């Protein structure tokens, strides 16, 4: 493997940046909203510190695991939203569509139908993906703004959900007791050993991706981020992995009726989020279709002229939103232990909030799947912390609204900043 002299000549035309210039460029990127992770991390630290001071149980392993489980739904709904936000579109119906998907699984696995769990799960995801495709087809063919189509969807699918649930004749709620696997998703844990294996594998895999990319670039004589930055990223992932292992593998059980109950390991739901995070990130950063979603969001006309089939990729994004919404719905009904016709109507707001707080732009073209993880975590911290402090729902709504507004404002300012800097 030798890099030919021609390539080196070409490369020398582009001056290598020193590590400090690179660090400086990253700092400047913050203002443009390219890597807004630092302010978000500071926000998390402040929120956690506040809740911990007000209630010392906040950082207990038991509460943290509960918080993570609450976050799984927000994270997945945020991911669902990101597919469309990348195009500058939005889906306002993810809340009810996700629950409708969950209801599909519960009803089909119920005594009346007795479908095996994998078929019910498959069917639930098919239903929500089809709904996404329907939204997409209407948006694209009729050239209606997606927020109008999905606003109509918000009402229509709530109606369908109420109809379907009430039609079971069980008084507006269907419990999920007959379907063990669905229930177990959120409510049971993997063993402590598997917890360690899964988290260690996640950290090692993501570190390898970073290191192999750097090595391949160096071999081809391309500029590489200074090792300090890669090293810091890996160190952060190792530390986070270690902390998570220690949280999950703490025995969170309580003494019940005289004997100690053992409760330890990572809930399965979190593995679902990890898999979706890895899959979604790989799709967006490594495939042509992922690249085209960014291109269409940035300049649809440029994408069209470059030969990208804009409508086909918009439809794909709507279907990915439906797909991800379905998985979120399965976790939601697993946590609720069933489905009712009275659904928290703020779910969709949490979904958009998770995506935007994490750093995905409402204006299209900028966003990453990991933003949903970070944003969903922040939403869950506020949701969980306020619950712990017995703060009323009204105050909780207002708090999340303020955070969402702040995130959108930052997004707006970053967008203006990048336009001015041209």
């Amino acid at each position, binding site marked *: 493997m030798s890099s*030919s002299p021609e390539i080196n000549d070409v*490369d020398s*035309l*582009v001056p290598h940046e020193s590590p400090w210039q690179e660090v400086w460029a990253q700092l400047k990127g913050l203002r443009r909203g390219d890597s807004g992770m630092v302010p978000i991390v500071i926000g998390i630290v402040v929120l956690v510190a506040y809740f911990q001071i007000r209630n010392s149980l906040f950082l207990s392993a038991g509460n943290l695991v509960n918080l993570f489980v609450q976050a799984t739904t927000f994270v997945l709904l945020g991911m669902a939203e990101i597919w469309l936000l990348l195009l500058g579109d939005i889906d306002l119906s993810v809340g009810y569509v996700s629950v409708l998907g969950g209801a599909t699984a519960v009803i089909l696995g119920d005594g009346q139908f007795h479908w095996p769990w994998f078929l019910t799960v498959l069917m639930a995801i098919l239903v929500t993906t089809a709904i996404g495709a329907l939204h997409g087809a209407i948006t694209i063919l009729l050239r209606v703004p997606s927020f109008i189509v999905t606003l109509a969807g918000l009402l229509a699918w709530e109606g369908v959900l109420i109809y379907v649930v009430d039609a079971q004749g069980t008084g507006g709620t269907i419990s999920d007791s007959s379907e063990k696997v669905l229930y177990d998703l959120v409510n049971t844990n993997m063993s402590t050993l598997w917890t360690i294996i899964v988290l260690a594998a996640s950290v090692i895999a993501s570190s390898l991706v970073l290191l192999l990319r750097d090595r391949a670039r160096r071999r*081809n004589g391309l500029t590489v981020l200074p090792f300090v930055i890669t090293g810091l990223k890996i160190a952060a992932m190792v530390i986070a992995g270690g902390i998570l292992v220690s949280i999950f593998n703490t025995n969170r059980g309580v003494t019940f009726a005289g004997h100690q109950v053992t409760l330890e390991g990572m809930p399965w739901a979190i593995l679902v989020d990890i898999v979706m995070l890895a899959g979604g990130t790989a799709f967006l950063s490594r495939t*042509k279709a992922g*690249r085209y979603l960014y291109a269409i969001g940035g300049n649809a006309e440029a*994408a069209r002229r470059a030969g990208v089939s804009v409508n086909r990729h918009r439809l794909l994004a709507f279907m990915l939103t439906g797909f991800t919404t379905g998985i979120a719905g399965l976790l939601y009904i697993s946590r609720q232990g069933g489905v009712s016709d009275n659904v928290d109507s703020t779910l969709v707001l949490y979904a958009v909030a998770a995506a935007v707080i994490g750093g995905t732009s409402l204006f299209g*073209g900028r966003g990453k799947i990991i933003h949903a993880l970070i944003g969903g975590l922040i939403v869950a911290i506020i949701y969980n912390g306020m619950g712990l402090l017995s703060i009323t729902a009204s105050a909780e709504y207002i708090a999340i609204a303020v955070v969402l507004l702040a995130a959108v404002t930052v997004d707006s300012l970053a967008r203006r900043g990048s336009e001015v800097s*041209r």
Partner: protein
Amino acid sequence: MTNAPESSSTSLPVVGPPAHLDSGVSSSSVLLELRGITKSFGAVQALKHVDLEVPAGQVTALIGDNGAGKSTLIKAIAGIYAPTSGQILWNGEEVHVHSPREAEQLGIATVYQDLALCDNLDVVQNMFLGHEETRYHQLDEISMELAAKKVLADLSVTTVKSVRQKVASLSGGQRQSIAVAKAVMRDSKLVILDEPTAALGVSQTAQVLGLIHTLASRGIAVLLISHNLADVFVVADRVAVMYLGNLVSSGPISDYDTASAVDWITTGASTRGASTMAPAS
């Protein structure tokens, strides 16, 4: 991976030596020839029997006032409008260009004024948009980055500091350079540039004019639409003047001076200067 620059599919074509300046168009070097191109929009005749020869390796400037038909003419060449009548000859053979894609397949690349770049993508991502290279169904970022760097180096575009910076962060001249590089990197033989220096500062204009010169010296035919006569006289080898849908004069740049060019543009006729070309009937 071994990516020898010589074998790169994106290396620029070299179409014979640059044709002689000031020597009229010898028939062998004519890449594109328009014969009697007419385009009507209903009752309005936007192009009236236009004859034009575009030689390889030279910069042909298409000048004229607003509404003279310059844009309609390039759209007919680029496959956006079908001419009402007339012939388009490509390397001496008649072709029918029905769509921008067909024009691209012939080797005709058009850079419009709005550049069609995605601000949120970086330089490499923009240059390969719609033509990404993959390995095992994954984007091959390294080979695309190497190829993009090579194209930019071939075109002597040295002002872009990193090909991994977002296009949003580039200056107007850099954006124009990237748009041109993107257009020519896939074996283009004719590049049509629509007002490439409009809205650019002095040094950035010089940068883009340098790039145009480089394209021609690589054997590529350049058709340059410009309002700016100063730019035209710096970079063009040949001039074609349009007036109210007619191509009223064309010839080597040495046949014109600023005064006669202005005469042709504003009145469709000139009695001054060295121009002796008869108006196209």
